[in-house]
């Protein structure tokens, strides 16, 4: 029971990332992004002190807030329609994402032993899962908002992985700056697209 409870954040985070990969509803995507970042906290808490474990989830919240306020400004926030049926593209992306995660799960022990023997398998599964889903998001979309979500997912996976390898205040500060700038770039793209659609 304890094991399941401990693994819960990992599966919730991956589910949120999958939701962002599959669904194209901005409000839903922002909520999923917050959940994804929040679920990193218990995982990070296992390897770094509380103050440091808070950095990444807190940055994620800031990033989501920037995107939310921008979408609010351009009228992009709408009520979530859960009954909206899945399109063939969404089904494809969902299945491809699940296939990627399943493949990762199968090859994880060998990969862990060969490359990252000091990282726990749960930690490695979540970080590599986020990296793969982020990459897939980057490869399947053109809309800037989803590009930013893909990049944030990819980076959060990498940051999680790297936090288990080494910790540096300078690097952490740089990565926070990258995340915040990425959100600002996303906001810039959203506003630009809204402007060019309205003209």
């Amino acid at each position, binding site marked *: 029971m304890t094991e399941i409870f401990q693994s819960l954040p990992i599966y919730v985070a991956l589910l949120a990332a999958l939701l962002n990969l599959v669904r194209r509803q901005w409000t839903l995507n922002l909520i999923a992004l917050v959940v994804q970042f929040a679920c990193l906290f218990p995982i990070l808490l296992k390897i770094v002190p509380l103050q440091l474990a808070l950095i990444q989830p807190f940055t994620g919240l800031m990033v989501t807030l920037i995107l939310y306020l921008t979408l609010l400004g351009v009228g992009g926030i709408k009520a979530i329609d859960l009954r909206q049926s899945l399109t063939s593209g969404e089904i494809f992306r969902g299945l491809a994402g699940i296939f990627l995660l399943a493949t990762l799960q199968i090859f994880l022990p060998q990969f862990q032993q060969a*490359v990252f023997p000091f990282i726990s398998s749960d930690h490695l599964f979540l970080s590599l899962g986020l*990296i793969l889903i982020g*990459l897939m998001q*980057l490869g399947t979309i*053109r809309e*800037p908002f989803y*590009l930013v979500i*893909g*990049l944030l997912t*990819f*980076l959060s996976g*990498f940051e999680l*992985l*790297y936090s288990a*390898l*080494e910790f*540096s*205040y*300078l*690097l952490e*500060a*740089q*990565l926070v*700056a*990258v995340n915040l*700038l*990425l959100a*600002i*770039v996303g906001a*810039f*793209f959203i*506003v*630009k*697209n809204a*402007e*060019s*659609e309205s*003209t």
Partner: protein
Amino acid sequence: MNNTVIIWLLLPILLGLGLVTIQRLPKLSALLGSLFPLVLAVLALIYSKGLTLNVLGRYFTLTDNLVFFGRATQITADQLGIIALLYFLCFAWNVMSGLFNVGRWFNSLTLIITALWASVQVITPFLYSAVVVELIALVSVPLLSPRGTPAKSGIIRFLSMQTIAMPLILLSGWMVTGIETSPSAEALVLRGSLLVIAGFSLWAGIFPLHSWLPMLTEESHPWTIGFLQTIMQISLAIFFLKFLNQYAWLRNLEEIKLVLKWIGALCIVSAGVLSVFQKKLSRVFGYLFLSGTGYIVLSMAFQQQGWLNLFTQYLLPRIFAYWSLGYTLSLLREAIGSEQLNFSELKGLIWRYPLSSILLLASLLNIIGMPLFSLFPSNRILLSILASESMPFRLFVSLGLIGMVLMVLKVLGVVIQAPEDVDQDKKERTLMIIPVVLIILVMVLGGIFPQFFTAPVQDLLISFQNLLN
């Protein structure tokens, strides 16, 4: 203020942010945007001999170390040559920016980007510079994709590639930690090298990961993309040399030179062949950057004594070639009102814009390294070294060169073609002859007297002691 890190990294970023506040005054912004990097470049050149300056018996001494988030960042006198080059590059682009419609952010962001590229060369540990490269890509977005147009594919791919590259570089450093004591060092070296090569390939847009490059040159103003790509190409090349200088395992790897030769040759042949089939000069500009990357990579690989001689010879002529072609394309873009410079819009250009047309042809001949022009001397050395290499390299580089010559002939054919229904009157001011003659003169002087370009950068890379031996 008497610290090199504050003067050449933090101050320019603050000045760049200051310029943001006066972006509604474009002339003042362009003036200050040119003045600041010029002063910084000249100061860097003066202090590159030593960090103590004697002016009329008064000594001005700079310290070279600043602790930042628990890590010491250092800019020594040896590194100031590289920093001077970067700020000089920034000055060269900003000083002419007032002539073109490059957007209000140009002067401020170019100064910030230059400071960030300078920081890439000096941050300790140097692997953390990978994150700064990502920051630069993000800061470049307003320049590459100005407001009023939707975000296009080129910028999206560019951002994706730059982001994917960063973890590869960071992981390479971790991967090879303790390599000296590891029993399976060979496997670790291989993994580390692969990560480094893959990271740099994504960053620089090496063939076949180059698709964003012509897309980006097509979507952006030639003056803007010219600056961003030139400073990126030069800075990344110097950063790669830093990797070679720091990592003995990478430098001593037998296959590294072979890999570099293949990368260079593939870039040159792909750029040459693909440029022949382009219908827009803006895209050709992208392929010229790809070809330039190929020559720079080859110049690093084809070194018989040390790594640096041929590379330093390439630096200034190549920067000047990008600058002059960027200037010409920007002139044409604003003159004929075409964003992408389709070949169909260039028909009969020589009748309407004779001076710009001559400058265009001269700039193209210069950048592909034809005799009499400034890139020829270093290209000639490279080609003579290549003569003793195996057949595939000779064939690839020759094909690339032939492709580029065909592309220039194609442009020539379009430009001198008699126009059909358009007005054939000359539309250029006579005063245009001054910059055109000056630029062509510098190109030719650089070709006849190569030391004109090579002498100023001779000691540029003296901080890379391990590569000089």
